[in-house]
């Protein structure tokens, strides 16, 4: 029987199969609620940034009192009414968003900045380094989350920046754990072995091979955490630490409006609605992103 000669006929080039990233985005866009969430977030971010231009009462938003107009119910001139110092509530919401949203974003950003590299180092090098880093992580994770943030915030003093630092300090361990777990499983993969065997220095391996591969889980976790970070920030502000009046923050707006709530709920009420909408949106986005990123849960039906 004649042997089959190798065919040198080139196959016709197939049309492009979508990349993993494209598949994730496609699946994500299918989730209508998540897309709605994106719109809501964009709305709040834009109104915070352009607050002075969007409201006819920029001074009040920033804190200037207007006592003669105090306690006005929502109406034509003030769509959300005025608060106990006569300030337009809608303006306060826009200005408050600056504090609340920035707190959320920066807390997660800082937590990732500190936590992710530590996790990669711990996971990659293993041994003593790993032990030390994980012990430290364990200690921080032993505290009930909010409590540690309160203690640190009190120690550092009130204020916007101190609050952010305090919360970020309680948050970074989660990212260390996450990245370490990912790194440990990546470390076993052959392409890492290959890089090491040709002499690529460790930190370069971490930077160019490991960190990009953990990007997706970090993004998913980070998005889900944004909502929680905003809630924690609001809680700290509510207690009295953090941003001090007359500067606006959705959390301190609720605490300021608390005593008037039974008769005049609109200023504490609006602030709560704002927090709820933003956090809900981030949670919806985070859920959709997580489901889209995992091939098992990515919905197959187009």
């Amino acid at each position, binding site marked *: 029987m004649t042997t089959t000669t190798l065919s040198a006929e080139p196959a016709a080039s197939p049309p492009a199969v979508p990349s993993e990233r494209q598949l994730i985005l496609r699946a994500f866009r299918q989730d209508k609620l998540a897309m709605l969430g994106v719109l809501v977030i964009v709305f709040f971010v834009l109104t915070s940034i352009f607050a002075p231009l969007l409201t006819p009462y920029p001074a009040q938003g920033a804190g200037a009192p207007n006592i003669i107009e105090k306690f006005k119910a929502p109406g034509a001139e003030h769509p959300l009414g005025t608060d106990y110092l006569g300030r337009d509530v809608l303006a306060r919401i826009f200005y408050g968003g600056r504090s609340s949203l920035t707190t959320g974003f920066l807390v997660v950003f800082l937590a990732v900045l500190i936590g992710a590299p530590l996790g990669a180092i711990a996971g990659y090098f293993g041994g003593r380094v790993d032990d030390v880093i994980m012990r430290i992580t364990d200690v921080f994770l*032993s505290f*009930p989350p*909010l409590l540690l943030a309160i203690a640190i915030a*009190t120690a550092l*003093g009130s204020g916007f920046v101190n609050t952010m630092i305090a919360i970020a300090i309680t948050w970074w361990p989660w990212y260390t754990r996450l990245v370490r777990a990912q790194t440990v499983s990546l470390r076993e993969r052959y392409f890492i072995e290959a890089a090491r065997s040709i002499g690529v220095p460790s930190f370069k391996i971490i930077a160019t091979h490991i960190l990009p591969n953990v990007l997706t889980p970090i993004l998913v976790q980070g998005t889900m955490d944004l909502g929680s970070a905003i809630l924690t920030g609001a809680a700290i502000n509510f207690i009295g630490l953090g941003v001090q009046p007359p500067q606006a923050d959705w959390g301190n707006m609720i605490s300021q409006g*608390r005593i008037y*709530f*039974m008769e005049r709920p609109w200023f504490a009420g609006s602030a709560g609605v704002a927090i709820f909408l933003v956090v809900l949106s981030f949670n*919806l986005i985070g*859920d959709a992103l997580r489901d889209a990123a995992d091939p098992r849960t990515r919905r197959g039906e187009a």
Partner: protein
Amino acid sequence: MQRFEYLIKRFILAIVVILSVMVLTFFISRVLPSDPAAAWAGSHPTAEQIAIANQRLGLDQPLHVQFWRYFTSVLQGDLGTSLQTKQPIARDLRTYLPATMELVFCAMLLAVVVGIPLGVLSGAYKGSFFDHLTRLVSISGVSIPTFWLGLLLQLFFFSQLKILPLGSRISTATAINNPVTQLTGFYLIDTAVTGNWAAFKDTLLHLVLPACTLATYPVALAIRMTRSNIIEVLSEKYILAARITGLPRRTILFDLALKNAIIPTITVLGLSFAYSLTGDILIEIIYSWPGLGSYITGAVLAIDFPVIVSVTLFVTVIYVFINLILDLLQAMLDPRVSLE
């Protein structure tokens, strides 16, 4: 024998963690503040008061000496004195702890009894109307600021409907006419045990709103996590294999998959406890609940440093132990966990 060794090992680890926690709280209290002596001397201290604080704290001493003094006094049960109440903090803690624990316990009970079953059903019938409804409710539950929700509930049930009280553990009328005998500090237990049914009913009414508000986040979280646990278990190959042997869906879900899902559920319990504990601080403010939460927030506002540090340490120790117990429970339930 293996199990016993594991127990000892975990216990020692917990001790090490607690020691580290003490070091960290010490660091926060002495090293972080810009002027520790001023912080420990109370608000608006005079120069003289600061000097006294300096000496009493031993701030002129090297750090490790300070820590040793702090460490030994904690071991002796001396957690310092509150700057506001001028009482030993340890005594304050004993007074306020039961109120907090009663609330936290109720919230956790709700999380387990309501959250877990809903999560199981939601995941088992994924894609159904019930599932969608439950998901909507649970995702709202983890998104809503609980302190704000408390205000809303007060507005509705107290101000509008007038069927539930605004706050506190019991009404002043009951405190005068049917006072609660202090046995455990858990009013529900104390009133039931002494047959004080008027006070029991009153206590219950006062517990409803705070417990439900506090339970919102843990219940919602429990639903979400249990749901994803069940879905993950149901997607495992051994469930497919079981299905192919002809076992009906109900048997697979309740006799098999449930046991697989119980193990990660312990994690759910742990997180429920964590969030109940932290959310409790905010709930106590809203409902004027005389527990550790009110105690610590009062301290925050007055910058009563000894209280803040001691409460943090105390609560963390409780937290570490509860987590230790849950860890061990998880290890005992999972036959795969090697106890070497």
